[in-house]
Structure formats: structure tokens, C-alpha cells
């Protein structure tokens, strides 16, 4: 049991207004598919992409110059059933992502888990930070 508190409604309203004005990135750029995060360390670049409902066979990755091209098809997972609500998108997609550094072409690792694609790329020797000796 919880006593009715008149201020709950006031804070609920505030939350509603806050949520409206706070920029929710996941929904705001949903035209872009897939959404991508890129982070880096001194040695490597890690790219994560949201690809829910897709398996490794559905996606092709290509490295073109210093762009990573993610391409594939998101297949509809229920065929001709009567739908009541339909918010998800299906179909072909292609997205080219500019990598922040030049990468070593031979050591690229990609894996999929729980609808997230992870790509690990090693920086090219020239792109790694170098310590310069002062004499």
C-alpha cells in the first residue's frame, strides 16, 4: 500500500517534460542504420554497431580505403502474419563509416553477440603515437 502523494503527479509531469527535451539519440537518428559507436586506444580502434535480429551471415564488412562499409539485409522475422503493431524496419542497408585512423588491413576481427556487431581494428604503424627523443 502506498499513500497517494499529490507531489507525485507534479514530478511525473516534470519527468515527462524532461524526457521530451532530453535528446534521446537512439530514437532521434533511427534513420541511420545501423547506429555506430567508435572508440580507440593507442593501439586499436573498436567499432560497435546495433544490429538486432541479424546473424553473421546477414552482414558483409568491407574495408575501402579508410572507410568501413557495413552492408546487409535485415530479414523480416515473421512472414505473412496479421500484424497489430509494426514499428521495426526491415530491408537492405548499407552504411559507410569513416575510420578515425588508418588501420592495418590484415588484423581485423569482427564478432556478433546479442545483436551487437563488434569490429576490432589495429591502427596502422604510422597512426600510432610515437615518442620522440629529444637530444
Amino acid at each position, binding site marked *: 500500500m*502506498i499513500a497517494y502523494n499529490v507531489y507525485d503527479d507534479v514530478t511525473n509531469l516534470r*519527468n515527462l517534460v*524532461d*524526457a521530451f527535451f*532530453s535528446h*534521446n*539519440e*537512439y*530514437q532521434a*537518428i533511427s534513420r*541511420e542504420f545501423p*547506429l*555506430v*559507436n*567508435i*572508440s*580507440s*586506444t593507442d593501439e586499436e*580502434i*573498436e567499432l*560497435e554497431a*546495433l*544490429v*538486432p*535480429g*541479424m*546473424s553473421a551471415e546477414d552482414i558483409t564488412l568491407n574495408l575501402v580505403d579508410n572507410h568501413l562499409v557495413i552492408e546487409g539485409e535485415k530479414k523480416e*522475422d*515473421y512472414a505473412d*502474419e*496479421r*500484424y*497489430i*503493431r*509494426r*514499428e*521495426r524496419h526491415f530491408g537492405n542497408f548499407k552504411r559507410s*563509416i569513416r575510420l*578515425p585512423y588508418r588501420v592495418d588491413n590484415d588484423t581485423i576481427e569482427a564478432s*556478433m553477440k*546479442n*545483436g*551487437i556487431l563488434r569490429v576490432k581494428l589495429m591502427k596502422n604503424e604510422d597512426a600510432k603515437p610515437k615518442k620522440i627523443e629529444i637530444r
Partner: protein
Amino acid sequence: MRYEAEENKIDNRNLIMPLADVYETDDLYTLKLEMPGIDKEQFSVTVEENELVVYAKLDGFPQSKNSHNNEFNLSGYFRQFKLGNDIDRNSIEAGLENGILTVTFHKAEEVKPRRIAITSH
């Protein structure tokens, strides 16, 4: 909100509302939600009275490294659905695959389509 302790309300402001599809067959309603990045242990699906609540809290991904492109932040997911009376509350099943949460509802016997036998006299 009646789930999780009352005093410990879910702060759903920063949680993502997962995209949902609902479709039906003669026996079932199926709900599919896009929730990339969650494990089986991290989500809860609860039914209370007429409300289905899907909630998942993620620890978030380590943000210590240099970030170059930041288009998503997986803080967690939250969404509520109203259930109709034609759903059998005791046979709701949930499964997770490749970041898609599938919840299956069996229709109550009374609302399933029935073939009516015609008897001739």
C-alpha cells in the same frame, strides 16, 4: 509503477523504449522487441493485472577510451504494454535471440476461431 520496490521506482527517463512489433496467428499473439546488447540475466518481463512490463538494465559500456562516434548509449530498456482480456495469463513465454526479445501469448480458449460443425438432419 507497482513493480520493483515502490520506494525504488525505475527511473525510466534515460532508458530506451524498444521498438516493438505485434502480430497474431489463430492461437497466439507474438510481441517482438528490439533490445540489442542484453543478456538473458539482465532483463525482466513481468505481468501484473493488465500490464506487461519489459525492463532491462545495462551496466553500460566502458567509456574510458577515446570516443569518436557516439550514436547510442545503451543504458537500458523499458516499455509497458496493456494486455487484453483474451490472453491466457498463465502461459506467457519469453525468449531472447540476437538482441530480439520475443514474448508469446496464448489466446484464451474462448476467443480462438472455431469451426462449427454443421449437422444435417
